[in-house]
Structure formats: C-alpha cells, structure tokens
C-alpha cells in the first residue's frame, strides 16, 4: 500500500500546484471583479432588486 499512498501523495501535490495556478490565473484575469454584478444577474427589469416575487398578498394571513 506504500506505492498506493505515494501515488496519492503525488496526485495531491500536483493538484495543489494546479489549484494555485488556477487561482493566480483567475486573479490576473479579473475573474474576481464584478462579483456583485454576478449576484445581481438573477434579476431583470421586470423582477428587479427590491421587489419580492412570491407572496400571499395579505401578509397578515397566517399561512
């Protein structure tokens, strides 16, 4: 099982290196800007931010 464990270790190291590369690529290519815009993308002109889209009209009703 030592061989198996070493293979796993190598894969983990490669994976960590790849992850670090991916993050630095993302950072230099502005993937982390405009994240708030991404959060707003689910809204549109007809269902804009600020309007609830699902409610019993009379909110005092216990439902």
């Amino acid at each position, binding site marked *: *099982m030592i061989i*198996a464990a070493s*293979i*796993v270790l190598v*894969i*983990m190291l490669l*994976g960590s290196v*790849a992850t670090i590369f*991916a993050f630095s690529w993302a950072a230099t290519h502005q993937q982390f800007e405009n994240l708030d815009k991404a959060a707003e993308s689910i809204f549109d002109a007809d269902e804009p931010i600020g309007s609830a889209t699902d409610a019993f009209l009379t909110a005092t009703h216990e439902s």
Partner: protein
Amino acid sequence: MTKFRFIFIGFMLTFLSSWVGLVLMPVWGLGNFKQTADPKTGEMIPPTLSSLEEEGRSVYIANGCIYCHSQQVHPARVRTDIARGWGERRTVARDYMNQEVVQMGTMRTGPDLSNIGVRNPSETWHLLHLYDPQITSKGSNMPPFPFLFETRKKDPENPAPNALNLPPGFGPGDEFEVIPSEEMVALVAYLQSLKLSSYEIPEAPAARIESFAE
C-alpha cells in the same frame, strides 16, 4: 462558453481526484488478494464456499439481511465486538476475498454475523430462529421468514424427518408440519459457513482482549 469550460474542467478534476483516491486506489490495493494455505491445517484460507453455501448467500442478499446485520469485526480498541464474542480477532480485507458481493453492512439492528458459524453452529437453532425469531430470541425485532418454509398437513404415519420441532404457541398447529424449503436449507448452510475471522492470519493475530472503555 469559455468560462464554462474552465468551470467544467475544474469540477471534473476535483471529481477525478476522488475517483483516483477512493475507487482506483482501493481496486489496486484491495482487489488482488489470492488464497493462501493455512500453515496449521494446510487448507486454503479464506475457504471457498460450497455451491449450497453460495446459494445461501444469494438468499441472504435477496432478502436484505445486510440492512440489520453487519459482517465486520472491529478491533478491541474501537468496539466491544471481540468482547461480545463476535470474533477472536478483527476481520481484515483478505477475509472477504471470496465473496462475490461483499455483505459487510453498516447497521447493527441485529448482531454482527462474521463468525455466526462459530458462535451458533446449530442448524436447528437457525431454522427455529429464522422461522420465527421470537422462539429463540424473545423481544427481537427481526422479522420471521415463514415464506422460506413449507407448511403442509402432517401425515401421522409418515411425519417428515426434517419438520421443525416447534414449541407450543408457535406454528400452524399439530395437524401441520413445517418443513424448510431448499432456499432456507441453503441460507442456514451459508450462515454456518460464516467464520470470517476464525483462522489466524499474520495481519491480525488473535487479539488480546484489552480493556475497552473501562
């Protein structure tokens, strides 16, 4: 599309890492056991099951015994398995190598069965227990398996030799006899064959029963 491609590659790589670690590695490391000869008896261990015992295993599988019974003895420092007499040593990977579909189990609504063939070798006990667990184990929540037996009218001149000897209060009455079906006979043979950690192997010599949670 380009951004999705990267997300796709990313999540398939994370998936692949788990596939390598939890699928490929086990297949490489745990999937190539060979039988060896027991130095004491000369027999191959773990023993190969007879065809009747294999048939019994299919009955065990078809009726979902695994959902209440495990087949793995844990080491003394982890659990009371050995102290309860469920095995003389922990089970190791090699003990399972001859099973086609391993029945290790993850629930102990009922006791562990790894070594039930050592603990309860009596065929009669198993037949009664499986016909109605209340006979041998009052208060058990194991279901009865009457459909693995045949109930027929008893011929007083010619009673069946393998009819169950049911205690009063159980069974269809004196006019009838209850005979184990072929599937039941096979199942009992399988249970009697369960002696997963009854032979010594170098990976796990018979455990010294250490104090557990005392």
